[in-house]
C-alpha cells in the first residue's frame, strides 16, 4: 500500500469516522441524560485524535509535506487542536460532557476539510517559506483556543441558566461545573491571545518580505486583527477587572458568533489576496 493510500484512506478517514462516532454518542448521552455513553465517547474521541495525530506525523515524516500550505489541511489542523485542547482539559478536570459540544464542531471541520481535498488550494509558491508555516500554525492554534473558550462559554450559559432556575434537572447533573467551565475559558484566552499575537507578527513580517509592506488592508487581515483585538480586550478585562463567570461566558459566545458571521460575509462578498483556494 502506498503512503497516500495509508494516510488518506486509513488514518484520515478513520479519524473522521471516529469523530463522527464520538459526536453521535455524545449526543446520545445528552439526550438520555446519562454520563456513561459520554465516557465511551471520550475514549473514541481520544482514539480519533490519535489517528489524526498519526495522519499529520505520517504526512510530515513520510512525505515531507507541510500541512500549513493547504487550506483543507489547515481546517483539519484546526479540528485537531480543538480536540487536543479539549482532551487535555478533560484529563485535568471532570468536564466530560463538554465534549458533546466540542466534538460536533471538530467533526464539521473535518467534513469541510475532507470535501475541499482535491481543489486548487495550495499557497502560491512565492508565498511559501518558513514564516508562513509559523504564521499559519500559531494563528490556527490561537483561533482554535478561542473556539474552545466560546464553546465552554456556551455550556456555561446553559448550566448557569439551569442552576438559576432552581429546579431539579438531570441535564444540570450532566453538564460540567461553572467554575471548571470558567477556568477553561480563562486558560484558552490566556494561551490564545499571545499565540495569535505571535502568529500575526510572523504573518506581518512575511507580508513585508513578499508583498512589500506589513499591512495591506486586506479583509482577511482586518478580520484577524479584529479577532485579536476582541479576545485581547476580553483577556484584559478578565485579568485586570475581574470579569468572570456569566458575563465572560456571554461575551465569549457573542464575540464568536459575530466573528463567525463576519468571516462568512468576508468569504462571500470580498476578494482578498489572502485567499489561496
Amino acid at each position, binding site marked *: 500500500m502506498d503512503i497516500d493510500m495509508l494516510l488518506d484512506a486509513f488514518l484520515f478517514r478513520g479519524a473522521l469516522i471516529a469523530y463522527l462516532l464520538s459526536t453521535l454518542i455524545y449526543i446520545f448521552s445528552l439526550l438520555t441524560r446519562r454520563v*456513561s455513553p459520554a465516557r465511551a465517547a471520550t475514549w473514541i474521541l481520544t482514539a480519533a485524535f490519535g489517528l489524526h495525530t498519526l495522519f499529520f506525523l505520517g504526512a510530515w515524516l513520510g512525505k515531507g509535506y507541510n500541512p500549513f500550505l493547504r487550506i483543507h489541511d489547515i481546517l483539519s489542523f484546526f479540528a485537531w487542536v480543538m480536540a487536543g485542547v479539549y482532551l487535555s482539559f478533560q484529563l485535568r*478536570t*471532570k468536564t466530560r460532557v463538554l465534549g458533546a459540544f466540542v466534538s460536533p464542531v471538530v467533526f464539521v471541520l473535518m467534513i469541510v476539510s475532507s470535501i475541499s481535498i482535491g481543489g486548487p488550494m495550495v499557497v502560491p509558491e512565492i508565498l511559501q517559506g518558513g514564516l508562513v508555516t509559523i504564521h499559519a500554525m500559531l494563528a490556527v492554534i490561537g483561533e482554535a483556543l478561542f473556539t474552545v473558550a466560546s464553546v465552554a462559554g456556551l455550556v456555561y450559559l446553559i*448550566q448557569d441558566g439551569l*442552576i*438559576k432556575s*432552581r*429546579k*431539579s434537572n*438531570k441535564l*444540570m*447533573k450532566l*453538564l*460540567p*461545573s*461553572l*467554575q*471548571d467551565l*470558567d477556568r477553561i475559558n480563562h486558560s484558552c484566552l490566556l494561551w490564545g491571545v499571545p499565540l495569535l499575537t505571535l502568529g500575526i507578527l510572523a504573518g506581518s513580517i512575511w507580508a513585508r518580505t513578499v508583498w512589500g509592506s506589513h499591512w495591506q488592508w486586506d479583509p482577511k487581515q482586518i478580520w484577524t486583527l479584529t479577532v485579536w483585538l476582541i479576545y485581547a480586550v476580553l483577556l484584559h478585562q478578565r485579568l485586570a*477587572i*475581574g*470579569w*468572570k*463567570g*456569566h*458575563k465572560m461566558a456571554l461575551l465569549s459566545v457573542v464575540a464568536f458568533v459575530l466573528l463567525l458571521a463576519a468571516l462568512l460575509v468576508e468569504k462571500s462578498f470580498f476578494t482578498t489576496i489572502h485567499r489561496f483556494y
Partner: protein
Amino acid sequence: MNLILIGMNHKTAPVEIRERLSIACNEGFNPLDEIKAIPGVGEALYLSTCNRVEILARTQEHTNAEERIKALIYRHGNLGEEDMARCLYVYRDSDAIRHLFRVAASLDSLIMGEPQILGQVKEAYRLAVDHQASGIILNKLLHRAFRVAKRIRTETGIASHAVSVSYAAVELAKKIFGTLKGKKVLLIGAGEMSELAARHLIKHGGDQIFVANRTHERAIQMAADFQGVPVDFDRLGDSLQEVDIVISSTGATGYILTCDMIAAVLKRRKNRLLFLIDIAVPRDIDPRAGDIDNVYLYNMDNLQDIADDNMQIRRGEAEKGELIVAAEAERYIEWFNTLTVVPTIVSLKEKTAGIIQAELERANGWLRNLGEEDREGVEILANAIVNKILHDPVTCLKEESQEGSALAYVAAIRRLFRLDGLG
C-alpha cells in the same frame, strides 16, 4: 424450593417492636446458631438493621420449621404473639428471592436507593458464612443479590439525585464550584439545619468555616465545634468578600443580607462565584440577590422542592430496578431447577453418550478393519463400561433424593462433570 423469608420492616412494624428484636440480638448472642438448631432448617441468614429484621432460611419439606422460626422471633421480641404476628411478613420461594433482591438493591429501603443496606446485607452474609449457616443455595442466592444490587445501582438512577435538603445543597455547590476542596463556608446564625448542611459541606471537602451570630459567644462556641473562625456579626461584609458559600439561618425578621450589600461585595471579590443558601424563615437574604450575575441563591423551599423532585425521579428509576429484580429472580430459579436429581441424571447420561459417540467416530480408522459383529461388540463394551461407572453415583443420587438431601451431591456432580457448560 423451600426458601422462606420471615421479617418485618419500617412499613410493617413500628420502631418499638423492631427495636426489641434488634436489641435482643445485640446482647451478645447470635440468633443464627439458634435458627440453625431448629430441626428442618438447612441454611439460614439473619439480617438486622434500624429499619428491618429478616430471617431467610432454607427448610425441609414436611417440617414445622416455619412455625419454630416464628416462635423464636416472638420469644426474642418479648411481646404478645398477636402483636408480633401483625408486623411480620412471610415470603416463600420466588417471592422470598425477589424480596431479598429488592432489599439488597435498596428498593425496599425507607430512603430508596440509600447505599448502606448493601453493606449490611453483605455483613449478614459474612456472619452466616462464619457460623456455617450458609450452604450452596444461600451462597448462590446472596451472590446473585449482590450482583442485582450492583446492576441496579449502575443501570438505573436510583442512587443518584440527592433526596435530602442538605445533600441537595452539596450537589448544587459541586455544580457551581466543581470541587468543594478549599472552599470557605460562612454560617450566619446557629441552628440544627445550618449545622447539618455545614457538616455535609465539610465532609465533601469544604475547607474553612466562619461563624457569625448575633450573640458573639454563641459564634465562638459554634466555631470551636467546627474548628472554624468566629466573625463579627456587624462586619459580615468583610467575611462575605472571602467566602464561597453562605448558609444563613437567623431568626431575624428583616433581611440580613440585602441586594445592594451583595452587589457591592461581589465587586470587591472580583466577581468570584457566590453560593447563598437561605434556610431561615422568614428569609435572611433579599431574594432579588439571586438575579445578580455569579450569585446563586437558594432558599429552604427551593432545596426542599429539589429533594422532592429527586425522590420522584428515584421512584421512576425504581421501576426499572423492579424489572431487573424480576429477571434476575427468574434466572436464579432456572439455576435452582437444574439442581433436581432427574435432569441431572439425564444430562449426565447425555454427556457420556456423546463422549462414546465421539470416541467411536475417532476410532473409525481401525474399527473399519473389524467385521460388523466385532464393531458392534466394541460399541456394546464401551457402553457397558460407562454404565457400570455411572451406576453407583446415579443410585446414590436417587437414594439421597428420597431423603431430601441430594442438593449438595447434585451440585457437585454438575460441577465435576461440567454439566452447566464451561462457564
